[in-house]
């Protein structure tokens, strides 16, 4: 007994503060959030206990999911995620592939591509709000003006003010910002593949295409998966970029995170918590299979 204590005690003591903090401030608060989302706490009076709040279990969820407004938010989130993911993966891989061959001034390009990531979403959002100005023709500014100057007038559009696809315009700055990061991940992946493997493949008569298909891509797939997970969960949580380009009340760019903010500022804590819980469930649906997958890999 005392022997185990001596073996386990100090590490446990060392871990205790972070376990305690995680327990209270992460898992405890998640539990509190779920508890709140199961009540009918929709007014300021209920939030302070001046009026009674009752448990309504899943009513808030079913009511939310049934409204057009929230379905619109979810659809926006889906569109945003799809375009953001596809865009960053394509751009990131493309750049990595170009830089992977010995290029003059590679370090220089690497910094240029990676730099946008150092800018905060809020700061770049301010600039992109101007670039994505929806005025056209005489009053155009930003990208629409650029299209006029280079004679591509037909490319002018109203960007994020389109009701259905507006959210995709906001995915553009997100792609601009994170492609460099995906590039760095892929570049590290490429560098991790020993030259001997490529030479061996070439000796065996593999064409360049076959080399990529059968030698390089299989070794890059763990990198691709991590990139997908990282970008995917960032997209689900994205709020700051959308808020700094658009405004919380703008219908065309609403996503669940914005709904959560608006509910909270209307003192509707139950619905805010329910939206938060839905977001958590969506993120978990992405992350948990990944965690299980990596856990299995490590065991092997």
């Amino acid at each position, binding site marked *: 007994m005392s022997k185990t204590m001596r073996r386990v005690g*100090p590490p446990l*003591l*060392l871990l*205790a*503060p972070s376990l*305690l*903090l995680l327990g209270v401030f992460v898992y405890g608060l998640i539990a509190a959030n779920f508890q709140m989302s199961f009540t009918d706490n929709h*007014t*300021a*009076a209920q*939030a*302070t206990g*001046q*009026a009674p709040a009752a448990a309504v279990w899943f009513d808030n969820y079913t009511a939310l999911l049934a409204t057009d*407004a929230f379905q*619109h938010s979810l659809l926006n989130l889906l569109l945003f995620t799809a375009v953001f993911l596809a865009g960053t993966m394509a751009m990131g891989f493309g750049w990595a592939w170009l830089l992977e061959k010995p290029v003059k001034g590679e370090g220089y390009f690497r910094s240029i591509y990676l730099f946008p990531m150092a800018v905060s979403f809020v700061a770049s959002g301010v600039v992109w*709000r101007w670039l*994505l*100005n*929806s*005025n*056209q023709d*005489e*009053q155009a500014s930003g990208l629409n003006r650029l299209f006029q100057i280079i004679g591509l007038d037909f490319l002018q559009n*109203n960007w*994020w*003010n389109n*009701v259905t696809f507006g959210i995709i315009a906001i995915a553009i700055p997100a792609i601009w910002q994170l492609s460099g990061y995906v590039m760095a991940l892929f570049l590290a992946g490429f560098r991790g593949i020993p030259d001997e493997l490529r030479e061996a493949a070439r000796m065996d008569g593999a064409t360049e295409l076959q080399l990529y298909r059968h030698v390089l891509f299989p070794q890059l797939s763990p990198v691709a998966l991590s990139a997908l997970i990282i970008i995917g969960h960032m997209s689900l949580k994205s709020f700051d970029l959308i808020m700094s*380009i*658009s*405004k919380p*009340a*703008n*219908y*065309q760019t609403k996503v669940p995170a914005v709904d959560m903010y*608006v509910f*909270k*500022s*209307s*003192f*509707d804590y139950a619905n805010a918590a329910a939206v938060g819980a839905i977001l958590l469930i969506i993120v978990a649906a992405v992350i948990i299979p990944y965690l299980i997958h990596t856990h299995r890999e490590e065991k092997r």
Partner: protein
Amino acid sequence: MRINKKSAGVAASVAVLGMTLAACGGGSGSGDADAEGGADQVEVFTWWAAGSEKAGLDALVGVFQEQHPDTEFVNGAVAGGAGSAAKDLLQTRLQAQDPPDTFQAHAGAELQDYIDAAQIEDVSGLYDEFGLTDAFPADLVERLSTEDGAIYSIPSNIHRANVMWANPAVLEDAGLDTSAEYEDLDAFIADLEELDEADVTPLSVATTWTQVHLLETVLLADLGPEAYSGLWDGSTDWESDEVTGALEDFETIMSFTNADRDGLDWPEATQQVIDGQAAFNIMGDWAVAAFEEQDKELGTDFVAVPSPGTAGTFDFLADSFTLPVGAPHPEGTEAWLETIGSLEGQTAFNAAKGSIPARTDADPAEFSEYQQTAIESFANDTIVSSLAHGAATPVATLNAISDATSKFTTGASDLDAYQSELAAAAQG
């Protein structure tokens, strides 16, 4: 060596644990030490951190320090987001029962949430003590009172929401009357059409809240002050044909506005009028500061008139100060509220901020030309409450109306759907 390492680890973890506990315990005790109702200080929570608002607050503090030299003023101003950052922090502080001694809030229905949550005190006693019941217009006092006669805040200033700003040079180029006063919306819409052909934006507008602001002036114009006020107490039917007509006018007017509206905030929309890119802008009278800062003269460089069809009505909103439940220095708060309500305080504050005093006994000569016209209207016109600025409805209703409006103006819903969404929003 080994033992050393181990004990160092234990020491480190104990230290971390200690710091954690200290951090957890820190927040709660701080306010209690001096909580004896002391008049020694007052923390004033506002979002007046820049521009004319900051100048107004500074002027107010000057008067406060003369009137109450023993009470220390603690500035709790939170900058950013036109008050949204401050409101968020305030919500958190009130919820955690750590209220400031007094906070700024729009007078009227916006206070309802705080009242329902029992977070602010009835200050009607102070109205008698400071003689404010006679100093403020009866219309205003009635609007500030709840149904059972309680009043929860003291206004520091009055703003007018139904003001239309126009650029006379643009109007002249289009061959229109430069005085720009309109009896009704039909005449206004006819001129918007003419302007539309003249290659300028007829009416500039900005993001959702300014569209709600526009909607409110359109409702006021078409329904008249009485039916407009009825929208907020349930006596006017939101589903009625009159409202449908007003919403049709709103749709028509919105079709004459700039395409990039959703990305702008009010100063950018007002700037379009100043720069001559747009002919008209409907915005509250805080916009006068934007014109004056750029050395524009009322009457020659810009025109400020009641928004079309609303002459004789004063669509009001007011900043006001409260006494939160459990304020650490209630006597300091009383001192602050006395200054807020006093003639000197209101004069100093409003001369700097550009709004007008709530008191009727202020001397108009101390204010600017625009302010003098507003003072006169406030004394003589019918007063109604602003929707977009929290005077007419609680926050949740306003948010629902904003959502419906944004949906409608981006083209995601039609007029019928919009009207029923508004009706649902007003019912809460």
